[in-house]
């Protein structure tokens, strides 16, 4: 008996457009927002928008969720480009809060080169309250045909 060319018990190392499952909720580990995050972020961006002490910059949690998004129990998605997003800022987040990100893909649209994936994402705090939420549009590679 010949052995199968692909061992089905081995998870694929990368996730292509065809592999993306709809309506599966993926939750990331938590990340505690620290003064170090705020200092680094403000230093990089020079964003001097007024805020009181302890409030983190509005865009920082979204940026952190982009890294957290890779730390989910599924192989990394082969993203060709981030096309855009719509986002709402619902609750203030402060240094000391711990965020995590929960996302669900609810739309897939195949194109000639790759496919569009629309992901609903929300950032929740340590009490499970949604602090920021929206949808992100990604261009994802199709599985190579060779």
């Amino acid at each position, binding site marked *: 008996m010949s052995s199968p060319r692909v061992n089905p018990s081995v998870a694929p190392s990368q996730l292509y457009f065809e592999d993306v499952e709809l309506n599966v909720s993926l939750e990331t580990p938590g990340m505690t927002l620290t003064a170090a995050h705020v200092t680094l972020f403000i230093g990089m961006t020079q964003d001097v928008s007024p805020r009181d002490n302890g409030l983190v910059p509005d865009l920082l949690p979204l*940026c952190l969720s982009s890294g957290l998004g890779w730390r989910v129990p599924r192989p990394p998605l082969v993203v060709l480009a981030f096309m855009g997003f719509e986002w709402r800022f619902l609750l203030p987040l402060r240094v000391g809060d711990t965020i995590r990100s929960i996302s669900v893909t609810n739309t897939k649209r195949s194109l000639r080169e790759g496919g569009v994936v629309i992901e609903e994402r929300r950032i929740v705090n340590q009490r499970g309250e949604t602090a920021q939420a929206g949808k992100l549009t990604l261009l994802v590679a199709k599985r190579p045909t060779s």
Partner: protein
Amino acid sequence: MSRISQVYATSGDVLSLPFVSSPDGAFFEDVKVGREYTSPGRTVTETDVVLFAGLSGDYNVLHTDAEHMKGSLFGERIAHGLLGLAIQQGLASRGEPTAAHALLAALKWKFKGPIRLGDTIHVRSRIVGLKEGVKPGQQLVTVERQVMNQRGEVVQEGESEHVLESRTP
């Protein structure tokens, strides 16, 4: 007490914050629909991209693997889209009245083209609307922004809504 009130309570006059040159002030009444602003430029460097990967934890090959990217659509590493967004927020805050970049309520954003390492970007913004907020004394300012590179190409664009307080609540 609203978020904006807390800003005033702790920092006094927000117009005195360092680096903010704010001809139009920080209140709802100071914002004029139709007014346009152009920010200073900033060159997006490899250092920016490496630091942003470290801060965000987004080490996608698009931003970190020069060899892989030689064979890609872009031919080289590109900046994270959200890095471009974060940098433009900082640039905009150097060119606009404080009121136009107060606390964010909503954002719609499109990444139209890559920001390559070494590109110099600046922001053009326009105040497009004012409306009542959810709470009394609160107003929402809508701002359209375009991020342009040194060739005049729009690499990112979108619309943001900011929460403001009225000077006379």
